[in-house]
């Protein structure tokens, strides 16, 4: 598990599907039929970490239906830094066997006028860790739905979403089900909303009756930059056991004028001061990304898009 060595490979979607440098412990089968990509990725037991870089170069609406399986003690990093300029419809089902780690990065840009749907269901086993980081600029119609089942003891979820919305509409749903003892979840969502935007975030934490020693944290925060921008945050808790520590927080509003004023008093022009402030706001939870290369990329993503 998380050995010092890493195998890097890539999957490129274009007119066809190109798989490069797939290591021995990776079993990939992907079919492209009638503009629909279907298939699976299996990661078998290995001391070497596996990282798959996904690139979308298709000039059409992107349709993917993917099953992912991580065997015991395996590590999979999935990284998608593609542009989606024709819309997308992605459905992923993931299953994690015990002691496995799944780290999923999405740093995507979407063309404003497209429709994008994303659904990810994850089932974990004992001592699993699922890390989910999504950076997005939204589109006219966007739905993101992630549902995590923490099925066995000591499973954990760390997730962070950043939505930089310039006159886009997005619904972001996150459901975390604590179905066993001693599971942990930690989720954050940050958004900045400009122009005629509507950003919704609904995060639900469910703790089943027998799930003692649950620890769950959820925070969602939004900045409203224009009169026509709109942010709806709904952090829900559904707790059915008393031996838990659960908290959530939500906040939305305008930028803190005193901070912007402070920066301006140091000679920084208004636009730049605002940018510094917004970047800081969106980057608050980047320390949750343990991989420093990806942390840098996330920072760069924020800086380019906001």
């Amino acid at each position: 598990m998380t050995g010092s060595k890493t195998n890097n490979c890539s999957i490129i979607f274009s007119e066809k599907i190109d798989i490069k440098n797939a290591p021995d412990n990776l079993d990939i089968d992907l079919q492209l039929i009638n503009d629909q990509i279907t298939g699976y990725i299996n990661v078998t037991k290995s001391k070497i970490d596996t990282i798959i870089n996904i690139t979308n170069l298709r000039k059409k609406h992107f349709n993917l239906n993917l099953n992912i399986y991580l065997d015991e003690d395996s590590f999979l990093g999935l990284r998608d830094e593609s542009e989606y300029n024709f819309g997308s419809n992605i459905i992923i089902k993931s299953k994690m066997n015990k002691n496995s780690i799944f780290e999923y990065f999405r740093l995507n840009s979407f063309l404003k006028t497209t429709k994008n749907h994303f659904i990810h269901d994850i089932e974990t086993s004992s001592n699993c860790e699922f890390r989910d980081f999504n950076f997005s600029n939204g589109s006219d119609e966007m739905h993101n739905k992630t549902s995590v089942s923490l099925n066995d003891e000591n499973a954990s979820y760390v997730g962070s979403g950043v939505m930089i919305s310039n006159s886009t509409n997005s619904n972001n749903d996150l459901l975390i089900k604590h179905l066993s003892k001693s599971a942990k979840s930690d989720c954050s969502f940050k958004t900045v909303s400009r122009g005629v935007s509507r950003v919704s975030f609904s995060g639900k934490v469910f703790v089943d009756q027998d799930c003692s020693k649950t620890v769950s944290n959820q925070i969602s925060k939004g900045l409203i930059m224009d009169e026509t921008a709109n942010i709806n945050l709904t952090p829900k808790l559904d707790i059915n056991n008393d031996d838990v520590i659960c908290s959530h927080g939500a906040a939305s509003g305008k930028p803190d004028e005193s901070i912007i004023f402070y920066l301006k008093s140091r000679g920084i022009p208004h636009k730049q001061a605002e940018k510094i402030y917004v970047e800081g706001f969106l980057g608050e939870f980047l320390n949750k990304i343990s991989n420093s290369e990806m942390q840098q990329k996330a920072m760069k993503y924020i800086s380019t898009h906001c």
Partner: protein
Amino acid sequence: MNKVSKDTFKQDKYKYGFVTDIESDKIPKGLNEDIIKLISKKKDEPQWMLDWRLNAFKRLQQMSPPKWVKAKFDDIDFQDIYYYASPKNFKDKPKSLEDVDPKLLETYEKLGIPLKEQKVLAGVAVDAVFDSVSVATTFKDKLDEIGVIFCPISEAIKKHPDLVRKYLGSVIPVTDHFYATLNSAVFSDGSFVYIPKGVRCPMELSTYFRINASETGQFERTLIVADEDSYVSYLEGCTAPMRDENQLHAANVELVALDNAEIKYSTVQNWYPGDENGIGGIYNFVTKRGLCKGNNSKISWTQVETGSAITWKYPSCILKGDNSKGEFYSVAITNNFQQADTGTKMIHLGKNTKSRIISKGISAGKSSNTYRGLVNFHRKAKNAKNFTQCDSLLVGDRCSAHTIPLTENSSNDSSIEHEATTSKISDDQLFYVMQRGLSAEEAQGIIVNGFCKEVLQNLPMEFAVEAQKLVNISLEGSVG
């Protein structure tokens, strides 16, 4: 802590569960136009009021009871309820307390609400509502002097029709939702309060609701209007006998605050919660809404919800006037099989409007406790601010706590802040306090009261102490 204190508890019976042996005059069961006409006739109402009710009934027939609530219960047979009951031979409200049936006075005495003026709580005027009628109102003369109207709504309909017609249904529209509409069609009695311009009401006004007759619903209607620059603090309390049937209580409460006016509304709700097996208890489906109509107006709701089998209510504020303020302070305690789904809505329409929500939910036994809230900032609500804190405390591992706060922000010049925590009473805290000699139950009481402090301190002094005791009683039997 179970090792320590399994046997320390003896269940205290619901103290207000007695039945007053007084013959009641009920109209036939069922819900139809004739029943509504009969209720209106019993109350000797003017034609406009009857028309208003009939209109509501007409709309009701196109509606059905809402299903979205978290609570689980069997469908209610609305034809199997008595919609009106009064103590027998109770034609008009007695002119003075000498004319009130001694059994009724005794009932309120037993409930801790003395109605005889020499004994009344200093500084508190009481309107006592027994089933469908108001039986007594204290301190009437003193209030008359300063122009404060505090009377049963049935009386206000006759004596102050202009005020009632102007404001009744102005905050909760007749067709708001099923139970609100049902109330509009069949409401029996409740209180009417009008505070004239510039008057600061010198005493607490309070209504005490009592359900006595069996198979009877109580549909109270309360309307409070605070005219410009006025202030009033109002408190309601409620109890019912212990019965193995479920009784429906569907009230509508409307508050209107004009420019610079302030209304403080406090509730100590202690309807019969059902027994430890979940049999019986009141269904408390209540619509409470306040309109901060004027600039700089303020409405503050404080509630301590300990009773009822099912509680379903969201005292809300519509902040229409600029600089208006809304507050909601709530303690909801559920034990055994109780289900509470409560919270608030703060609708910010005006500029510089502010709202504050502090909710403390405590669930014990096999109960379920939900906070459901909405904070909405309209685009024009410039510089609006909201702060929400909702905390849940769980006692035992078979209860549940749910937090469903919606925040909708369309104002770029505003801030919404929401915080929530869920936890249990820590074993360390219990052990620490028990080491000082307090029993497990006492230790739990002291910790829970600390948890609720921020809310309880908003109650008027006279009731804060009562509420603290109620908090302890409600949790009895839940330790260990």
